[in-house]
């Protein structure tokens, strides 16, 4: 697969994938730490604190894919990849609409 400008393109692809990988890694590490802390406190009998820690972990986890879409959108904008910036925006709006509709119902 020989394409013109392959070197430069590869550079871009590598950059976006590494940025997203780092973001997802940070999200999953924070979520896992909060969940583990919550489960340990539950086992220790601190029943008031445990659900809060676990919920915090779940919120971090649920926010990660949304942040991932936003991050991808920003990277595409910076690279002037207008189509993909637009696609990211469409995805983001659909997710937001889903949350609003679901919560209203």
């Amino acid at each position, binding site marked *: 697969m020989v394409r013109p400008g392959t070197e430069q393109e590869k550079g871009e692809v590598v950059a976006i994938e590494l940025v997203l990988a780092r973001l997802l890694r940070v999200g999953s590490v924070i979520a896992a730490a909060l969940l583990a802390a919550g489960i340990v406190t539950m086992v220790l009998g601190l029943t008031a604190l445990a659900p809060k820690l*676990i919920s915090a972990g779940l919120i971090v986890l649920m926010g990660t894919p949304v942040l991932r879409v936003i991050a991808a959108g920003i990277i595409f904008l910076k690279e002037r990849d207008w189509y993909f910036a637009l696609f990211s925006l469409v995805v983001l709006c659909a997710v937001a609409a889903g949350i609003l509709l679901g919560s209203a119902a």
Partner: protein
Amino acid sequence: MRGKSGRCEETGGARVVVTFIEIFLIGIAAGVIGSILGLGGGIIIVPALTLGFDMSIRTAVAASTVSIIATSTGAAVAYLRDRLTNTRVAIWLEMGTSIGALSGALIAGFMNQRVLFVMFGLLLSSSAYNMFRTRKAEHAVQVVPDAVSRKLRLGGSYYDMALGQQVDYQVTRTIPGLIIMIFSGAAAGLLGIGAGIFKVPAMDQVMGMPFKASTATSNFMIGVTAASGAVVYFARGDVDPLVAGPVVLGVLLGAILGAKLMVRMKAAKIRLFFIPVLVYTAFHMFYRGVKWW
């Protein structure tokens, strides 16, 4: 565990710990299987929690939806680094899944759900048949990219550790792929699943992507498909932290482990695990579509 909380208090902390460990182990299993096959793992978690622990469907589906995000996030780190995930294809197709999920939620009240289930069943059966036919192939034959794929530069390249070689590939039938994703998103919205079972065949069979790139990309996408559902369940208070906590932690760890295993597996082997899951789900969809009792 809500229904059991009284009993838990009576029998003390030991019972809680045992239940936590059991749920945690189920989570690990679901995470490993889900991450390798590009699925959310809901097909394991929902029956395990409802049948094994007497939980309500509501609690189980809510916990499962959150854990789909865990499978996706946990495995995606490894898949992104190994370049197995095609981020451009993922974002293109996510438009289909997210719009589909939205319309699934909207039409749920108006359209006859049985018709939808039968349609899902048909779609999955044909995927199962096609996948069985090509079960031995490690790669699709030379794929010629269509105009949209060329314009959007959807082709990709990754180093396959199982084959010990670089795999360059092209993507075709970009629009039919997007249309299937709308169905997949609708299924996800209606059933509270990640619907990776629709996504993998769409990329592998229809769009001509390598199987491993398809499961990794599906895995990447299901997190976004599940995100709005998960937030809604959470806001409604359906997510029980004491159930979701151990499941999700298990799934996260399982997915990290599964992703490490998958990059070293041959595509033909992963397909062999995928086909029975596909057949089972197809039957399940038909069953829900035609059952009259």
